[in-house]
């Protein structure tokens, strides 16, 4: 609401945040000085030179806005996917149509309207009671991993009919949570003589959900133990996957009768199926560090980019199959775990959690993972396998008898030589040799390690695990 100020004569005027600009000072000072000099030294040609700036100064003063506009900004969407855009919009409401509340003098109002009429005719626009905001400009700095449209983040518009809306499109190119703004909104009056700056609004938070990589797996689930889901169990039952055609037994549903076979053999036969069951998948995300340069969805991916997008893809794949999925994050403060659940709403919960990961904010060793897992759960650990802590956790889980698959998400090209640091490449190569030895040891301990390659990354290893699932396992309890 516009604050009002009482004048000496008792009339009310709104308080204004409009401030004169350098341009107005220039026009006023030079106009008055040259005009007085022209009179004093009797040089009418100096008065001609002073005329334009003097006219501009008087004109600017005449159209000085007396009331503050109001500005309100909002975001169209607070949650987007990587590569998607949202719009930041600011609405500046001009208050030129306001009239003073009770207490404003009639004479003052009439005088204002007469002046406004003349000013309006000169301006060639609608009648106005006083000057008003004429050009509104909004400036929005681009947040990290975002592109703006227009690219400069600056939009300007002429105020014509009271309100003006300025829109800047913000495209987020990387998952995560980041702030947009604060934006600067500036209005100028006629001849850019007065300037008004809106109070800074708090920045808006936009959550960018990771865009899951393309992932698919045709391998059977390792330990399908649940009651629902699309994974084929080892037992026949009421499901969708064909098992055999067998003679009718008591309790079989009539709709399962296989009539061609029954007609041929003369006895009732039914189609039997494997029961559909779900499995419990636990995705462990290593966020101890983020290696490599991230250029967002359009460019090079860092290790955490690959990890997060792969985690989203695996979660999406299993949740669509009706499996139960849980997520545990290592090395990030605040985000620890997403409890086990299923369904499309759970996918959103998983992606929301992945978007809040801040790498390396909690590098303490909390000892063994307390996942609270039931027997038969499949643990998929996504890690660049640079931090020894992640490998220790994977080994600890495997020794407890759980099925663990480690997915290597280290991006390629990370050991390229750095021109500014000759030891950079050497140090990386030494670390990778150590890493190679660590991976060999953990594979010898029975934990498979596969490189993330998108669709089919886990097929071979899951098939092998499924084949060996029935074998006796040695577990330390």
């Amino acid at each position, binding site marked *: 609401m516009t604050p009002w100020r009482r004048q000496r004569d008792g009339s009310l005027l709104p308080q204004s945040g409009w*401030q004169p600009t350098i341009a107005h000072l*220039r*026009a006023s000072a030079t106009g008055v000085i*040259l005009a*007085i000099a022209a009179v*004093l030294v009797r040089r009418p040609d*100096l008065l001609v030179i002073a005329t334009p700036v003097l006219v501009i100064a008087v004109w600017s003063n005449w159209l000085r806005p007396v009331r503050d506009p109001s500005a309100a900004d909002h975001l169209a969407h607070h949650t987007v996917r990587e590569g998607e855009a949202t719009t930041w919009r600011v609405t500046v409401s001009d208050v030129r149509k306001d009239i003073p509340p009770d207490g404003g003098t009639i004479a003052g109002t009439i005088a204002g309207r007469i002046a406004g009429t003349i000013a309006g005719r000169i301006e060639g626009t609608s009648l106005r009671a006083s000057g008003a905001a004429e050009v509104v400009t909004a400036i929005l700095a681009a947040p990290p991993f975002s592109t703006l449209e227009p690219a*400069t983040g600056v939009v300007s518009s002429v105020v014509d009919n009271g309100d003006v809306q300025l829109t800047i499109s913000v495209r987020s190119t990387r998952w995560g949570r980041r702030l947009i703004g604060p934006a600067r909104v500036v209005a*100028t009056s006629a001849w850019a003589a007065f300037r008004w700056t809106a109070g800074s609004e708090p920045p808006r938070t936009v959550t960018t959900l990771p865009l899951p990589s393309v992932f698919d797996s045709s391998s059977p689930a390792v330990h399908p133990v649940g009651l629902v889901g699309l994974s084929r169990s080892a037992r026949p039952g009421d499901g969708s996957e064909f098992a055999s055609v067998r003679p009718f037994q008591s309790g079989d549903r009539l709709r399962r009768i296989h009539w061609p076979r029954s007609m041929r053999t003369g006895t009732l036969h039914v189609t039997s199926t494997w029961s559909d069951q779900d499995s419990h998948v636990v995705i462990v995300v290593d966020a101890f560090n983020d290696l490599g340069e991230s250029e967002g969805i359009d460019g090079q991916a860092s290790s955490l980019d690959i990890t997060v997008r792969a985690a989203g893809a695996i979660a999406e794949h299993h949740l669509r199959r009706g499996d139960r999925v849980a997520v545990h994050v290592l090395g990030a403060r605040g985000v620890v775990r997403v409890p086990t659940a299923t369904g499309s709403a759970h996918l959103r919960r998983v992606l929301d959690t992945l978007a809040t990961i801040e790498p390396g904010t909690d590098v303490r060793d909390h000892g063994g993972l307390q996942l609270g897992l039931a027997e038969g759960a499949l643990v998929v650990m996504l890690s660049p396998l640079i931090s020894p802590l992640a490998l220790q956790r994977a080994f600890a889980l495997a020794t407890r008898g759980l099925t663990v698959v480690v997915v290597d998400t280290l991006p390629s090209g990370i050991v390229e030589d750095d021109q500014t640091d000759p030891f950079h490449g050497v140090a990386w190569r030494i670390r990778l040799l150590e890493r190679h030895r660590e991976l060999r040891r953990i594979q010898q301990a029975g934990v498979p390690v596969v490189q993330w390659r998108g669709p089919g990354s886990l097929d071979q290893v899951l098939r092998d695990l499924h084949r060996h699932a029935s074998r006796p396992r040695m577990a330390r309890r």
Partner: protein
Amino acid sequence: MSLTRLDLVQNEIASWTVDQIVLRLAVVATPLVAISAAFAGASSWSPWLLLLVLVGAVDCATQIESNLGLLMILLLAWHWGVTVDDLRTPWTLVAALALALFHTAMAAAASVPSAGQWSAAMRIRWLRRFGVVATLTLASWLAQVALAGSRLTGSGLLLFVALVAMTATALLLRAGALSRH
């Protein structure tokens, strides 16, 4: 330190839009036109003054929100007053319009950030206003030319009235420009 400022200026120039480039060129060119009009009116010229005006104009173009523009206008007007004696010369109109365009270009360039795009409505509005100012300037020049040939005698009363009018205008501008809080 100067390198930092140079970098800032380079970044600033790199962000200029076409509209801003046109306006900044006008800021550089118009003082040169005004001083050239003064040279033409006085039939003499000074390379050092031309260089000074050029440097000042370039500085005004790069720092659009500086007070140097005010000094530039006063310098050019002072130079006009001390060198040009012919009250009926048409170069007066050229100088007046050049200074008006100089001020208008600086004000317009400062009204929108250097990276901001100008809409057609904004261009039309500024051009229309400048047309009004130019017309009034032309009218005042015609009146001045007419009065210059009429051999008016000096009048103490007229001088007093003119000074009172100027003082009233100055007070009006001061009262209007200061914050009303």
